């Protein structure tokens, strides 16, 4: 009982909870900034720059505007961060799925848990009373709406595809662990022709969902003073920046688990060749898996976020909406139809 509680604490606080999210998320954000800089022929900030930014913000004073609702103003960033960290617990790292959490949330739940950070930033922004925040939250909400349709289509196609393949009684599955286990046995989902459009659609959704350039109309610092964050200062601002970095990790690792699951284990199994067994082997396997996951996350970030950032200019909000509901949704829909007709 106590051991279980301790285990849960370790999961939430260290891996794959807080510490892991904090380190890898910010590292991912740093790599993204560096990559963008290199693509623009700049030297760019050090890779640890997001860490410096975060700690600097923690050291600044927090000014609560007189017009703001103080409670909401201070709680909103914490809620968003906590929800994201908890969400990360449900995403398996290749074969490593925390058994106690496997039956807490499925894919559809994760879709809605992803809304909580967006809602918390919207609430926080609205609570300040700033008109910039008003404009910002309107755009953020429309961006969320825009991403929702393709994301729904992608998740439904994956659920149906795996459900049919494993011959589930209901013909569908929404369990992430089932999807990952299926990929361990039958190869990554990306190898399925019918799911390739879905994978591309998901890749295109990632920058929109995380609010990265060119889909960052909600936080456009040059036109609406970073929108909902306009009145935030000090540590709460740092927490929002941290949430943004962790969201990049969440989206990329979700993408990898959905479409590239099964690759990491192959490398993990090499451990057996060296002659390690038992607990040590498991530990090394997990470490290797985490490493592989992180490398894959970096690759996905480089392709899906940094590259798009470096070559495009910011879109207007109605263009974002149109783009997601036409181009990206059409791709995802194609996948759904292909899956349903058994291809």
């Amino acid at each position, binding site marked *: 009982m106590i051991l279980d509680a301790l285990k849960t604490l370790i999961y939430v606080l260290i891996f794959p909870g807080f510490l892991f999210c904090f380190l890898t998320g910010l590292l991912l954000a740093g790599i993204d900034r560096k990559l963008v*800089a290199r693509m623009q022929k700049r030297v760019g900030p050090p890779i640890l720059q997001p860490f*410096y930014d975060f700690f600097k913000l*923690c*050291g600044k*004073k927090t*000014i609560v505007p007189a017009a703001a609702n103080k409670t909401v103003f201070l709680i909103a960033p914490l809620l968003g961060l906590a929800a994201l960290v908890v969400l990360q617990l449900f995403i398996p790292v290749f074969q490593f799925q925390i058994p106690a959490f496997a039956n807490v949330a499925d894919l559809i739940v994760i879709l809605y848990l992803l809304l909580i950070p967006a809602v918390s930033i919207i609430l926080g922004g609205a609570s300040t009373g700033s008109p910039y925040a008003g404009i910002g939250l309107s755009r953020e909400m429309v961006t969320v709406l825009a991403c929702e349709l393709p994301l729904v289509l992608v998740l439904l196609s994956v659920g149906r595809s795996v459900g049919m393949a494993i011959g589930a009684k209901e013909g569908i599955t929404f369990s992430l662990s089932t999807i990952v286990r299926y990929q361990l046995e039958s190869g990554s989902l990306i190898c399925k022709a019918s799911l390739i459009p879905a994978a591309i659609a998901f890749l295109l959704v990632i920058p929109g969902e995380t609010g990265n350039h060119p889909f960052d109309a909600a936080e456009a610092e040059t036109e609406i*003073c*970073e929108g909902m964050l306009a009145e*935030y200062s000090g540590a709460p601002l740092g927490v929002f920046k941290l949430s943004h970095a962790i969201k990049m990790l969440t989206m990329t690792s979700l993408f990898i688990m959905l479409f590239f699951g099964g690759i990491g284990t192959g490398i993990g199994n090499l451990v057996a060749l060296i002659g390690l067994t038992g607990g040590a082997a498991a530990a090394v396997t997990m470490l290797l898996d985490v490493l592989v996951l992180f490398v894959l996350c970096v690759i996905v970030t480089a392709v899906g976020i940094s590259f798009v950032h470096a070559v495009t200019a910011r879109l207007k909000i109605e263009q974002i909406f149109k783009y997601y509901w036409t181009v990206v949704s059409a791709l995802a829909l194609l996948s759904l139809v292909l899956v349903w007709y058994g291809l």
Partner: protein
Amino acid sequence: MFKKLIEESTGKSPWLFHINAGSCNGCDIELVSVLTPRYDAERLGFKLAGSPRHADIVVVTGPITQQSLPRVLRSIEQVPDPKCIVTMGSCPQSGNVFRGSYSVAGPLSKYVHVDVDVAGCTPKPEAVIDGLYLATQILQEKRKGMKK
């Protein structure tokens, strides 16, 4: 707990907020050029912030006209501590060619404590980077001096 980490980081991640107080736009362009690939101030962690609430360093350009004075002061007030004020170009320091005009209220040091002056009309980007770097040092000192 994180005191040292915070002090270390304060010098490495200065975010700028730029106020144009009646400038001729020369300095403004030059400030932006500091962030271009050629000079790339981002390698030192510099970043332009959209709102004074996010800023560490306030860069003021222009001779502080009567009209802009209250706005400049308000915006500087809204920057959370620790903060650093940098004047860029000769105008906010002396009034430059606008000195003595009925509509100029400068220099800025009459109203607030200015930490760094970067002189020149306009200052070279190298000088600006140098001045901003100096400001980050001051920022770090200020953070150390802040009572816990």
